[in-house]
Structures are given as C-alpha cells and as structure tokens.
C-alpha cells in the first residue's frame, strides 16, 4: 500500500514537473463532427479538427480510440510452419491511435515530451514490451495506428485544419481527440474533445441482433438463405 502511494506520489511529481502542462491554456479548436455513423456503404470517414493557434506555433492532434484488451501471440516457426505462441495480454490499450501534426514530431518536440504525451507512434510507452511493440506493428499494418506528419495544415491568420482518416475497420465506441499547440518546443496549450463512432441503420440492427439474440439472428439468416436458394431454384425452373 505504502509502495503504491509512493508510486502515485512520484507520478504526481512527474506529471507536475512537465513544464508546459501546468500552463493549462486552451486551444481554440473544435471538431466538424461529434458523431461518425457506420452504415451499409461505410468505406471510412474523414474527421476534421480546426482551430486557431498562437503565432508561429505548430499543432499536433492525437486521436485515441476506445480502450481494448489485447491478446498478442508471437508467431514462431515449429517444424517449418509458423505457429501462434502463448498469448501475452495487454490489459488496456487504445484500439485506434492516430497522430497528425503540422511538421514531423521530432522537429516540434523533444523525445521525452513525445513519449510522455504519446506523440510519436513509433515510440509509444506501450511499445516498450515485445508484445506491445508487436501490437503496435499489427495495428499500423491494419491502418488503425497512424501517423501523418503533414496532416495539419496551417492556413493564414494562424488557422489550422487537421484531417484524420478513420478507416472502414475503425473500432466502434468513444474516441478522444487531444489537440496540442506547440510553440518553441513546448506544449503551450491543449484541448480535449470527444466524439463517437457508432453503427447506424440496418448495420447497427444486424450487429446488435447478432450479439444480443444470436439464435434469432441465426434463424433469420437461415430463412434468408433458404429463401434465396429455394426462390432462385423455383424461378429458374419456371423460366426454363
């Protein structure tokens, strides 16, 4: 217990010693949408964050998807064949993570700050373990962990606009957008926004039914399948 308290204390010190966080200035920014609907023809969505920066400042936007529990299995070669090994469980990790910035991250902030705020997708805290690094690699390949160093456009009058692409396989749930203003290497202001990704329409109904009433769902799928199969056979016979 004492050790835990000690750790918590150290964490507090560590956090408060972040020089810029204490500033608590708020970036004037917002999202174009707080809701992204996933329906039948969904092939990804574009989310736009816009706002105003201090003069000569840069902007970094971090989009964090709903937290997930991940089981990571290293593949090993056994008798010549690639086989999944025993799982390592990561208890809580974002299912989606995107960083967009106005310049490459290493040109805006130092590595320590980048690590502390999760600004560098290639050096996240989770990647310190082998399983965590494997998780990030797989998610990057799936397009669910993304980094776009030119994703934030700074327009005239210090207006900025960040476009974030949410791929078709985007997880469903609550997302957080962290918006950071960086001037001369320091995080000078920040803002957190929330948005939601949810299935809508028929898609939502289908996936909800499949999860909550699987037997009914299966029977429905079966009736459809038998109807199409039987109906087609009947029609083809009538036609020939």
């Amino acid at each position, binding site marked *: 217990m004492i050790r835990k308290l000690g750790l918590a204390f150290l964490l507090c010190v560590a956090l408060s010693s972040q020089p810029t966080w204490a500033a608590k200035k708020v970036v004037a920014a917002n999202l174009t949408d707080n809701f992204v609907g*996933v*329906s*039948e*023809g*969904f*092939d*990804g969505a574009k989310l736009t964050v816009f706002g105003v920066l201090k003069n000569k400042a840069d902007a970094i936007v971090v989009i964090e998807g*709903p*937290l*997930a*529990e*991940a*089981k*990571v*299995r*290293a*593949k090993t070669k056994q008798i010549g*064949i*690639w*086989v*999944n090994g025993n*799982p390592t469980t990561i208890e*809580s990790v974002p*299912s989606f993570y995107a960083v967009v910035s106005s310049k490459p991250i290493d040109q805006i902030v130092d590595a320590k700050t980048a690590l502390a705020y999760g600004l560098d997708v290639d050096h996240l805290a989770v990647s310190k373990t082998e*399983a965590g690094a*494997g*998780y990030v*690699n*797989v*998610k990057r*390949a799936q397009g669910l962990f993304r980094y776009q160093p030119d994703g934030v456009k700074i327009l005239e009058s210090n207006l900025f606009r960040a476009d974030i692409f949410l791929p*078709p*396989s985007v*997880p*469903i*749930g609550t997302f957080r957008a962290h918006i950071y203003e960086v001037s001369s290497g320091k995080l000078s202001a920040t803002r957190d926004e929330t948005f939601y990704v949810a*299935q809508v329409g028929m*898609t*939502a109904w*289908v*996936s909800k039914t*499949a*999860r909550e009433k*699987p*037997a009914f*769902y*299966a029977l*429905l*799928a*079966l009736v*459809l*399948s038998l109807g*199409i*199969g*039987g109906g*087609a*056979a*009947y029609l*083809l016979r009538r036609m*020939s």
Partner: protein
Amino acid sequence: MDIYLPVAEMSINAFWLLGLGLVVGFLSGLFGVGGGFMLTPLLTFMGLPPTIAVGTQASQLAGTSLSGAMAHWRRRNIDVRMGFILTVGSFLGTGVGVQIFKWLKQIGQINLVIVLCYVALLSAVGLMMFFESAPGLLRRGSRVRSGGRLPARDGVVPTLTQGWGADGAFAVDFHVSNLRVNVLLPIGLGIIGGLLVALLGVGGGFVLVPAMIYLLKMPPALVNGTSLFQIIFTTAFASVLQAVSNHSVDVVMAVFLLIGSVVSVPMGTRLASHLRPEVARLLMSLLILAVAGKLIFDLFTTPGQLFAVETRLL
C-alpha cells in the same frame, strides 16, 4: 462499391463477393459439388478472418444446397430415409465440431487448424482426382448430372443389396436405395460430414459422395441428391450453433455470396453437359491443387506480421 459487413466489422468490395459467389456457384454446377471447399480459402485470401468465413458459409450453404436439392427432388433422386439417418450423425458431428471450434478459437489456434485441415483435404482430393485414382467415381456421378433416373419401382423390390453389417443387429432397410446396411455406418459418415461443416464450413459433399458410393454402396444416381438433402439440415444446424457460440455468421456477406452463386449454378450445370467428364475433372483437380499450393506456401513463408493480435473492446 464497398459494403460494410456488420459482424466481421470490415468493409469489402461487394462485386468481389458477388463475383466469388458466381465463380463458386459455377464450379458447383460444373462439378456437382458444393463448392464450399473453394470459398473459405478464397475468402481468407481476400482478408476475411477464417472464423467468419467458416461460420457464414454454413448459413449460405443451407440456401445453396436447398436450391440444388430441389432439382434432385423433382427427379426423385433423394433417399429421404437415408438422408435423415445421415442427419442424425451429422448433428452429432456438428455439435461436437462447433465446441472444438470454440475451444481452438480460445487457445488462438483456430486459424492454423482450419488452414491445416484445408491443406490436407484439398491436397488429398486434388491429387486423387489428378491421378484419377478413383476413375469410376465421377463418371458415375456424371450420370446424375445428365439427369439419370432410377428405374421406376412399383412396390415389390426383388432383393436388397447387402451392405456392411446387413445381417447384424443394427441392419436397416432402405427401400429407395434398394439397400440393407448397418445403421451405424451412415450415422458414422454423418458424423464426419458434420465435423467438416462445423470446422471447415464446407458441406462435405466431396468426401461424403465417394464414401456413400463405395462404403455405403448406395446407387450413384441417388448419392448427390441425398448428400445435398442432408447438407441442408446439417448446415442449417451448424449455422445456428456457430452464431450462438462463436458469433461468426455475417448475414450480409452470406446474402451477397448466395445471390452470386444461385445465378451461376445453372450455367455451370449447362456447361457440364458439354464438357467431357475427364476434362472437367482435370480442370477441377488443377484448381484444387492451386489453392492447396497457395495455402502451403503461406504456411512456410515468413508472415508479414510476426505477431497475431486479438482485441476485445473494454
């Protein structure tokens, strides 16, 4: 045009799905098999998780086999009694198979097992067909395709063919097939068929059909129809179990595949009557071996990702 699959939670090109349905339906009409054994590997090549491919196919195959069985029904090529006894076995096999599937999924080895089973099955069937080690099989099967019909039976059957265990305690008469056989044999075949449906998402016709001819000694003309008849119930049962225990049935994908396949089955059937059976067999064996070869290649080459990740949202 991309279509979002609500259970697989990914989007896929709708024309690809329709096209895949068309190809598989065509093959199934051409070769007189269900075509499921081609579909699972092709779907996984397209990036679908094998579990979803297997579960969805069970549902979709129910429709495909119904449309096939209806044609056989009109020609009276179905031994209903045998079909139901096979179904008893296949329900057992399916029930056990879905539990095995669930267990393999939990220990993270389901994808490997599906691939290994496919490699074994496709290589065996492909090589067998290629070397024509079962020469009589498809020639006889082709009689069914060309509309072969059993001689009319009016009541009296002279003598029943004596199958395995015909003089034992469990012997059962099948008058439509003109056969007396130990009932445990068709039940056992059914169990194998059920396992195949649950684990691999195939109807199992390409295993059951030769077994029914050579082991069960059923008249070849009745075999395709009876096998399809039984597959309707087996796949229907399997799809319900898969949806309940593994949440692996995607209805949107099933519908697109079905629409493609029901259109092209008759085209395949029509071509089959113009194609020499040996040619068809050779083409099919090459196709099967190509798919098996790709699966084997993937097993041995270093994968693009050295980690397998399974996420569950909190």
